[in-house]
Structures are given as structure tokens and as C-alpha cells.
């Protein structure tokens, strides 16, 4: 059985999703459905950022929500306090996140795996506490409302993304570019190296790889995409408050990534879109939706910890050659 070239499958899926994205606003003018779509795309990028650090690099990090929130606040502050545009806000968000990630990562990677997880959790909690208590800067529980819609151009020729339809396309561009960039990274040497480190760290070290540096790269990359999605998100919602750090977000991205399959790409994308869209379509009440996420998380960890990708992989393995060896990963 011949193996179809991976590139053509990827191109096909990408084209399909992109086409679907472009068509959606023509199918509905309802800002309700457009909002669902925007959330779906932003959350998929956010979940993919967790996938980079947890799925590809094998580091369970609970700091992603911390970076998502930090990105949101930085962008909001750049716009409301410093008079910048959202684009400048997003760049600032990415830089702050990456800087923070490298600092925290450098300190935390020296610790055991367990300690790393706890430190990552502490980071998110610390950011939440800062948002809540540092009233002078963040306005505390009262939040920073009234965030203006993104716009480009100056003077007369200003194009504002103030309507749901326009924001939908903005989110589509954001998701396409972000996921595209992530895909390039994870299929490149960087991704292969990370996967090898996750697979067998001792072997990687013995081959001369600077494991810590590579892990830092993963952590920084993940933080950047978390921060960017957070920044875009709050500008759609037009307000940021400490709830942005709520454990709800950690739960959602964990469920998305585990269902999709740690370290897989398209399954996580599909999982992200489905898991954000389905509960809204079904109009489930808030608590029931959360309970079902919890149940899904439990079942996934117990029954299919490798996610849909893992199941698909097992099915494929029954029909083709044995699983990839470390040597193949090194190519």
C-alpha cells in the first residue's frame, strides 16, 4: 500500500478548511454564529499553543492560560493606556510573553518534571493575582472595558474590523497564518528534534542536543501563540478582566489537545473547532457543558490518552509497516 505524500494531504485539508472559513459569513449574517466561529478559530490556535509545549515537547505546562491572559492585558494596556493600535498591542504581547517564558522556563526547567508542572501552574495563578490586585495598572476585578475594534489605515482611509463579519475574516487570517507558521515549525527539524526529546531525552542528550535550549524554544513559541490569541480574543469581546485567567480555559485547551491527540496537528485543529462549536450549537447550559468537558477529559485519559490521532494511528499501523523508530525521527 503506497503512502500518499504528506504534503498533498495537508494542502488538501488546509484548502478545505480555508474554503469553509471563507464561505461561512456568506451562509449566515447572524452575529451569534459568527461569534462562535471566531471563538472556534481563536481557541484552536490557543489549544495548538498548548500542543506545541505539551504534545510536541512533552512538557505538561499549565502556564499557557497565564500567557493568554498576559497577552490580553498587555495588548489592552498598550491600546488604552499608551494609545497604540491593536497590532502594536499584539506585538508587545508576543514579546512580553516570550520574554517571560524564557525567564520562567530557564528557572523551571532545572527542576523535576513534577516541579515544572507546579511552577507553570504558579505562573498562571500569579498572573491572575496580579490582574486582580494591581488595581492601578489592571483596574482589578473591574476590568478594562471599552476596547476599540481593530482597524488599519489612517485618517480618512481607515478600515475598521468592527462588525462580526469583518472580525470573522480577521480571525480567519490570524488562524491561517498562525496555524500555518506552527505547521512549518513542527514539520521542520525543530519539530522533529522536539519529538525526539520527548520520545527519549537521554538518547537526545547523548547525541549532543542541548535539550534545555530546545525546550525553551518550545516554551517560548507556545507562549507567543497563546499571547497572540488572547490579545485578539479580548478585542473581540471588547473587555478584559481577571476572569481571562479562569481555570475554565485551562480545562478547554487540555480537552481539545488530549482528544485530538498530543503531538498531532490536524486532529488537534479539528478537535479545537468541534469542541468549541458543538456545545454552542447544542445550546447546552453552561454547567452541563463544563461537566461534559470533565467527563470527556476523564474518558480520554482513561481510554484514549493518545487521542483521535492515536486511534487513527493504531488503525493505520494494523494495515501498514510498524511504527516509526527513533532513527526515522532523526531524518
Amino acid at each position, binding site marked *: 500500500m503506497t503512502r500518499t505524500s504528506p504534503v498533498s494531504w495537508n494542502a488538501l485539508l488546509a484548502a478545505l478548511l480555508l474554503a469553509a472559513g471563507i464561505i461561512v459569513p456568506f451562509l449566515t449574517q447572524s452575529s451569534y454564529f459568527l461569534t462562535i466561529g471566531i471563538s472556534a478559530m481563536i481557541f484552536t490556535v490557543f489549544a495548538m499553543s498548548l500542543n506545541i509545549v505539551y504534545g510536541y515537547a512533552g512538557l505538561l505546562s499549565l502556564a499557557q492560560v497565564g500567557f493568554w491572559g498576559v497577552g490580553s492585558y498587555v495588548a489592552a494596556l498598550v491600546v488604552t493606556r499608551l494609545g497604540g493600535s491593536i497590532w502594536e498591542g499584539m506585538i508587545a504581547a508576543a514579546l512580553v510573553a516570550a520574554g517571560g517564558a524564557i525567564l520562567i522556563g530557564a528557572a523551571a526547567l532545572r527542576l523535576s518534571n513534577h516541579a515544572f508542572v507546579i511552577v507553570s501552574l504558579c505562573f498562571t495563578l500569579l498572573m491572575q493575582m496580579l490582574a486582580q490586585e494591581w488595581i492601578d495598572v489592571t483596574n482589578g476585578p473591574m476590568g478594562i472595558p471599552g476596547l476599540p475594534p481593530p482597524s488599519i489605515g489612517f485618517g480618512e482611509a481607515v478600515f475598521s474590523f468592527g462588525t462580526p463579519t469583518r472580525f470573522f475574516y480577521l480571525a480567519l487570517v490570524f488562524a491561517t497564518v498562525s496555524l500555518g507558521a506552527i505547521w512549518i515549525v513542527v514539520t521542520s527539524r525543530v519539530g522533529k528534534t522536539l519529538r525526539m526529546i520527548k520520545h527519549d531525552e537521554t538518547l537526545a542528550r547523548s547525541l549532543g542536543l542541548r535539550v534545555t535550549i530546545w525546550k525553551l524554544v518550545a516554551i517560548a513559541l507556545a507562549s507567543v501563540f497563546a499571547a497572540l490569541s488572547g490579545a485578539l480574543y479580548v478585542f473581540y469581546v471588547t473587555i478584559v478582566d481577571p476572569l481571562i485567567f479562569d481555570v475554565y480555559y485551562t480545562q478547554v485547551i487540555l480537552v481539545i489537545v488530549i482528544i485530538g491527540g498530543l503531538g498531532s496537528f490536524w486532529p488537534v485543529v479539528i478537535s479545537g473547532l468541534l469542541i468549541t462549536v458543538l456545545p454552542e450549537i447544542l445550546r447546552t447550559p453552561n454547567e452541563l457543558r463544563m461537566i461534559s468537558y470533565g467527563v470527556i*477529559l476523564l474518558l480520554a485519559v482513561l481510554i484514549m490518552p493518545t487521542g483521535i490521532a492515536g486511534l487513527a494511528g493504531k488503525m493505520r499501523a494494523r494495515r501498514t509497516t510498524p511504527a516509526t523508530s527513533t532513527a526515522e525521527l532523526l531524518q
Partner: protein
Amino acid sequence: MSYEFLLQLIVNGIVVGLIYGLIATGLALLFGILHIVNFAHGEMVMLAMYAMAVVVPLLGGSYMASFAIIVIAAALLGWLVSGGLLAALSSKPGQMAIFEKSLLLTLGLSIILLNGVQYIFTATPMMVTTDIPTGAFTFGTVRLSYGHAIAGAIAIVIFAGLYLFLTRSNSGRALRAVAQNREAALMIGLDPEKVARRAITLSIVLCAVGGAVLIPLYVFQPIVGQALLLKAFAIVIIGGMGNVLGAAVVALGLGVLESVVGGFANIVWQNAIAFLGMILVLLIRPQGLFALAMRKG
């Protein structure tokens, strides 16, 4: 500086610390003996509080009777579910490590419990009126409300019992043996599953007691467990993740420190202490505290 004020703060802090201790020692037990991180620990306390909220009115406000029922129910329930929990948490080599698996599983459990309770009871704050009279013991100018006094007394009794159990009884010593050195414990013929189930049950009972003593003091909502989990976590990390005695001591210290700092400085700092302590310890002295965590197997 007013001595009476300081004394009042210390007295408050001791009671709070004792309650923290109940909750934190359960968490420490689970990690020390089973290497389980229990993210649903706070929700277990919260469940006990809501259970009390249901039972107390049914018993005409009788606190002691309700307390007894809740604790016994927790012990029974704990023993029943412990078997299932153990099966769920077991992992073979090549699969997810127990630490990671328990983290994700208990995270899922905590979501289900929190939202389940919120769905049934809504997020409206719950105030439970018991037959504990309003008022306080006075020692000079220091006041200890009856509710706080009862909470403190119960906690002390439980700790005494726990200490005796762990040091004098065979099953208690078995728990400590497994925590100290799992392989050796197996070699001398201890049944790991029974020990594990006892540890889980004990942990759940401690949570139930912690929740039950809080209900005359707090007005609570379903998210009350989250803040308690954080405190418990901080205590366990600072004191040593498998170290039950460490957890108890740090809990007491944290309670007093929080109270004193909150009294003399801004309330904001009160909640920050646990948190900052945890971060400092992790950055400066994680090796000593994670000695148990770093062992393989």
C-alpha cells in the same frame, strides 16, 4: 503595637491554620503514599460543605449530629470509591506517568464536581444556620467565637487521632512505611492496595471534617474549593510533598502568618503569602522538598 490585637490575630490564625492543616494533610498523604496529585481536593471539601447544608436543616439545625453523619458517610464513600480510583490511576510503563495521569484525571473530576454542584445548587451563596450559639469566648480582650472554638477543638482532636493512628496502629505504620520506601514495604509483605485504599479514605475523611467545621464560619459557593485547594497545595509544597507532619506545621504557620500580615498590612497581602511562599520554595529549595517526587517507581 497593641498586644491584644496581635494576640487576637494569632488566635484567629491558629484556628484557621488548624483547618488548613486538616485539608493539607489529606493532600500530603495522597502524594506521599500514592504519588497522586489531587486537583479535586478542594471540591471534596466543598462537597462536604454542601452535604452539611442539606443535612443540617433536616436534623433541625443540630451541628454535632450532622457532623457525625457527614464524617461517617465520607468514610464509607471513601472506602467504596477508593478501589475504583486506584484502578483508574494505575499506569503501566510506557503510558502516562501516574503524576500526570492523576493530575489530568483529578482535574476532570474537579470540573465535574464543581459544575455539578453549581448546577444543582446554583452559585448563590449558602449560609447554614446551626445550633451553635452566636457569641464568643473572651479571654481578656481576645475573642474566640464559638464556631471558631469548635472548629479548632475538632481539628486538634482529629490531629491527635491521626498522630496516634500513624504512630501506634499497624495500618497507620503501614502507611508510613509505604510512604518512606515503597519497595521495602512490599518486600516485608504489606498489601499495597489495602494501604492505598486506606490512604484515599483517610484523605477523604479529612476533607469532610475540614468542610464540616467551616460551615458555621463561612458563607460559601461552589467555587469555595478552588481557593482552599490553592492554600493546601502551597502548604504541601512548602512543607514537603509527602510529608504529613510538615504539612501540619506549615499549615499552622501559614494560618498565623496570614492573619498577622492581614491584620497589620493590607488584606491583599494575606492571600499573597501562601502563593509567594510556594514560589520562593520552588525556586530556592525544590530539591529538599521534592525528594519523594524525584524517586522513580
